[in-house]
């Protein structure tokens, strides 16, 4: 649990920025300035250390009080025929307030990372999967197969915290763990074991990955393959990989949807998930989709339990109506179907509203700048820094409490969205 060890220094601070919610940070707070002293990484450091600048809301570029900004936003939404509430980089209570507002204002909800997260969601909705949690992987994995992803580029501490921990619950020798990349190779050395055992790499282009995965699944199922090589990988090498997956006691197949940057990657994710299910007839295997940044897991969890559906749901008819194609906010904005866009982005000042013809209201992390000034800008505090809260981790079912580390006077996303809902 987060503890203040001396004046201005907090230990065991969880990071809402890193997706896998590393919770062992040591953070110092001097006035408004936050610095990560221990266990930071690129995402965490920038997340904690980006300074507060603007504190005053603006309407059409002019500084106003929060009450005026809220009133103005409520009026915009009341007069709007097709409101989209998106971005939604926030924590649990921010998500709850967004859902309440969407329900009352008959808006469409989406998240800034939906293009990526739907590569996983569509699979869960179609044929399901057998996935596991980070804690189980840490304690049990004997073979880690990494599909189409350079994990450490997006999750710098994944290997250190999950694959090469100091202790595991069942006393497994972590040097016996095998790490294999299929598709992309690693950009750094995080996948090398503490004693220098390097990961194995089987490279292929994204364009060939879907077929490589199909062949791998077929080999696991014992089918005869006529092809000799696929995308530069020898089928005999894939056959050896299939045999090792079948011999492993707890293989884990992992991927980051954000790195499967090709059309209909959900079909490849499904292929992997079906292969994992096949493996479970004789041994144990689990999938591990990695994500969880910018509140994407939190907001999808809240949306699912409150409405039944994940993102890309609209309340136009007074009840939740889910359509991942029609209610794709990026498509809607591109096709000029949106008159008002309410963009929530409280973690990363670089995650800005997409450019469009919609009147745009930004509820954004203080410090955000704009190419084109939005109709309304309300600077807000960051969950886990400026206010306490809760965030869900990449593996979904685990949530972590976030603490308030400084007094910036900035309102929370929950405060602002609730005020807008009241003013409607």
């Amino acid at each position, binding site marked *: 649990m987060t503890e203040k060890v001396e004046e201005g220094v907090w230990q065991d601070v969880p990071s809402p920025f890193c997706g896998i919610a590393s919770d062992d940070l040591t953070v110092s707070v001097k006035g408004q300035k936050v610095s990560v002293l221990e266990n930071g990484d690129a995402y965490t450091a920038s997340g904690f250390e980006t300074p507060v600048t603007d504190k005053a809301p603006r309407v059409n570029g002019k500084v106003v009080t929060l009450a005026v900004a809220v009133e103005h936003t409520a009026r915009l939404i009341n007069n709007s025929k097709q409101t989209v509430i998106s971005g939604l980089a926030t924590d649990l209570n921010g998500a709850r307030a967004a859902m*309440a507002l969407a*329900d*009352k204002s008959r808006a469409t909800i989406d998240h800034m990372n939906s293009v990526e997260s739907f590569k996983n*969601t569509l699979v*869960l*909705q179609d044929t*399901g999967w057998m996935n596991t949690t980070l804690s189980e992987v840490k304690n049990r994995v004997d073979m880690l197969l990494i599909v189409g992803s350079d994990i450490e580029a997006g999750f710098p501490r994944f290997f250190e915290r999950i694959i090469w921990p100091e202790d595991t619950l069942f006393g497994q020798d972590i040097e016996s763990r095998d790490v294999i990349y299929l598709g992309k190779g690693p950009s750094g050395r995080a996948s090398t074991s503490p004693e220098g055992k390097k990961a194995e790499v089987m490279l292929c282009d994204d364009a060939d990955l879907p077929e490589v995965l199909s062949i791998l699944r077929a080999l696991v199922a014992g089918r005869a393959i006529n092809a000799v090589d696929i995308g530069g990988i020898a089928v005999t090498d894939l056959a050896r990989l299939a045999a090792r997956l079948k011999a492993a006691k707890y293989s884990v197949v992992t991927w980051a949807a954000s790195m499967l940057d090709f059309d209909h990657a959900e079909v490849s994710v499904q292929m992997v998930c079906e292969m994992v299910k096949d493996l479970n007839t004789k041994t144990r295997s689990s999938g591990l989709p990695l994500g969880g940044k910018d509140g994407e897991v939190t907001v999808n*969890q809240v949306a*699912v*339990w*409150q*409405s*039944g*559906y*994940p993102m890309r749901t609209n*309340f136009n*008819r*007074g*009840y*939740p*109506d*889910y359509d991942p194609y029609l209610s794709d906010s990026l498509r809607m904005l591109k096709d000029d179907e949106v008159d008002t866009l309410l963009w929530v982005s409280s973690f990363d000042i670089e995650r800005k509203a997409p450019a469009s013809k919609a009147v745009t209201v930004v509820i954004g992390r203080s410090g955000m700048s704009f190419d084109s000034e939005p109709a309304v800008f309300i600077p807000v505090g960051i969950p886990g820094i400026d206010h306490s809260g809760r965030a869900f981790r990449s593996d*979904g*079912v*685990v949530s972590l409490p976030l603490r308030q580390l400084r007094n910036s006077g900035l309102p929370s996303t929950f405060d602002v969205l609730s005020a807008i809902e009241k003013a409607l």
Partner: protein
Amino acid sequence: MLMKLTGGRVYDPAHGINGIVRDIYVDDGWIVDPPTDGKVLQEVDLRGKVVMAGAIDMHTHIGGGKVNIARTMLPEDHAADVVARTELMRSGCGHAAPSTLTAGYQICRNGLYGRL
């Protein structure tokens, strides 16, 4: 048979013990005072371990992580059973795995977690 459980970190909310490292003496299934002569027949080393009373994990399956996975898997089930927003109640949906608010309203309405 007198047994000593040595050096565990004890959590016993019923007696206000919150993480104290101490010994516990057990005799024929009962927790007893330390023996006056200090003699025990069996000692169990619990240093570095946590000692708690058995607990009952009271919980429901309305808003938990696994039911949420179920909800995510059932979009067609929800679509057949939508619940519109009213002046007092939020919208929702669902039959096999209703949304939480809908489930809550149903429980209040007729004390049952199920369809009307």
